């Protein structure tokens, strides 16, 4: 098992990855779910570069969504849920921006968004769903007609049809496939030949990466290919789907990266206080995003003791007894 370096041309910094793959107007799928495995180091860099008019496609997203929205990077959003569980039943900057009409929003459900990514991954143009019949989720379009049918926006939100295999009695909604320009992912491990291993819940990350044109992965560590190849059942994505690999320790902070660290309740509460308040929000952005010189500086700001507190028990996957109030 030669350790052929298959990362040649893929290994890069956060700055390089964002500069190369994320453009104004790109359609971006964001990995993770609310407070778990959000690709935050990439998100901060996107915000720092003042990328504009992103078209985000997400199921349930929390921290990544809220920072991107709050930094003014988002022009269109297809989404099922914008919240952070008990830290933010509705994401704060997301809520304000929608109420102020700052960008276009199209609502779907978690199952619908996941199936749409699955359709993209399978290479089919749509997929049927039994969710949302008779609800406003299917009846109300959030995107206006003038943006539809181009730039990666489906011409219709959904298409109702009778089941042709059931004498037309059963109703289903066809949902358009998603094929984002870029999928951003934070994973625990990438091997020296570019194989990705995600540990814990995978959410819709695999479908998103298979549906996307480009896949950018940040990871906690690079490990020998021979190590991941000993247990291929546990691996998540093959090298040929991965375009950029960026090692960033704590790259999902303040969200969790199971088996490495828990979410950071102190930071999420600090975030909450700032994001709720229009005056405090620019201060937070300056202090934690724009004004941060390097990832080392970011980790120093979080602090060694706090990183120690949130360190995951490597068997349980989270930090038992962590004060989460």
């Amino acid at each position: 098992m030669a350790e052929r370096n298959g990362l040649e041309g893929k290994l890069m910094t956060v700055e390089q990855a964002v500069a190369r793959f994320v453009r104004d107007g790109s359609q971006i799928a964001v990995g993770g779910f609310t407070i778990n495995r959000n690709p935050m180091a990439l998100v901060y860099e996107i915000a720092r570069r003042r990328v504009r008019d992103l078209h985000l496609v997400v199921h349930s997203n929390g921290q990544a969504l809220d920072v991107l929205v709050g930094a003014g990077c988002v022009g269109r959003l297809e989404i099922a849920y914008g919240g952070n569980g008990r830290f933010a039943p509705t994401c704060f900057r997301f809520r304000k921006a929608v109420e102020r009409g700052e960008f276009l929003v199209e609502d779907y459900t978690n199952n619908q968004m996941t199936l749409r990514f699955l359709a993209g991954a399978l290479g089919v143009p749509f997929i049927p769903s039994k969710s949302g019949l008779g609800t406003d989720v299917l009846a109300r379009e959030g995107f206006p007609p003038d943006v539809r049918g181009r730039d990666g926006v489906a011409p219709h939100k959904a298409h109702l049809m009778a089941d042709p295999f059931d004498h037309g009695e059963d109703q289903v909604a066809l949902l358009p496939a998603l094929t984002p320009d870029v999928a951003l992912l934070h994973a625990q491990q990438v091997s020296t030949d570019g194989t990705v291993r995600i540990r814990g819940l995978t959410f819709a990350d695999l479908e998103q990466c298979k549906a996307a044109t480009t896949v950018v992965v940040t990871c906690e560590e690079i490990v020998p290919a021979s190590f991941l190849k000993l247990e291929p059942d546990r691996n998540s994505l093959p090298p040929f789907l991965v375009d950029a690999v960026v090692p960033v320790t704590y790259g999902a902070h303040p969200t969790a990266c199971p088996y490495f660290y828990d979410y950071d309740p102190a930071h999420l509460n600090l975030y909450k206080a700032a994001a709720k308040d229009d005056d405090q929000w620019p201060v937070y952005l300056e202090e934690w995003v724009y004004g941060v010189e390097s990832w080392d500086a970011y980790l120093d700001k979080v602090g060694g003791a706090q990183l120690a507190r949130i360190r995951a028990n490597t068997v349980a996957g989270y930090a038992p007894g962590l004060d989460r109030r």
Partner: protein
Amino acid sequence: MADTPERATDASGTTDAAPSPPAYTAREMMAIAAGRFIADGDVLFAGTGVAMLAATVAKRIHAPHAHIFFETGGIGPQLDELPMAVADPRVMAYADLNAGLVEAFSYVANRRLHTIAFLGAAQIDRYGNMNSTVIGDYDHPTVRFSGSGGACDAGSLASGFIVFMQHGTRKFVEKLDYLTTPGWLEGGESRRHAGYRRGGPLAVVTNLCVLRFRKDTKAMYLAERFPGVTVEEIVANTGFVLDVEGAGVAKPPTAEELRILRDDVDPQRLILG
């Protein structure tokens, strides 16, 4: 109301002659009342908050073979600590298996399983339809909420669902601002005609009472008020005319139910407050 926990001052709605029942909060009553809807062997689609308490208490008391799972893909976790979100790493620890959303929703929809979901919302109407998207006009909302998440999916696909709500006229409304999660739609057979093969709301558990749905019209009615709560109080807090015919009084929590809830399930009082 449950945010400023209310002590139940009178639990004598039952005629039980046992030692005087312990005091408890409305939130504790909610968790325990909802847990009583769970049958052994049910497969439970859990959210966080009171829903998780209900599921966990039920599993530890009368439904030991119930299985709890999360839409994020955490199937049958041990739940040594309460999760703060459905994506909390605590929903995966020592689980039966860890998967993703495709897998989780395939269990919600699985026709051979009796899947029961626990849901909440900003608004509910008399047919148990719910809104968790916006207040005001959808295109120009005055208040934006999180959106469906998996709520619409669970309302569409599960065998049934149980709703947790704080009782109030702005939450129990004549007309939703946006229909996120399908209940009985316009009542009667309308849910079936829309294309659903099963499911629908079974009960609404509030800080005041348990509401259910009439078999024929599918309209909401007051099934049981909690001890110490009057029918008038419930009616006054409901934004549509509520059918209260035949309403009873809920059995208060037993000492055992409370002990498990407080000592085993939420000792840090993350949700109980």
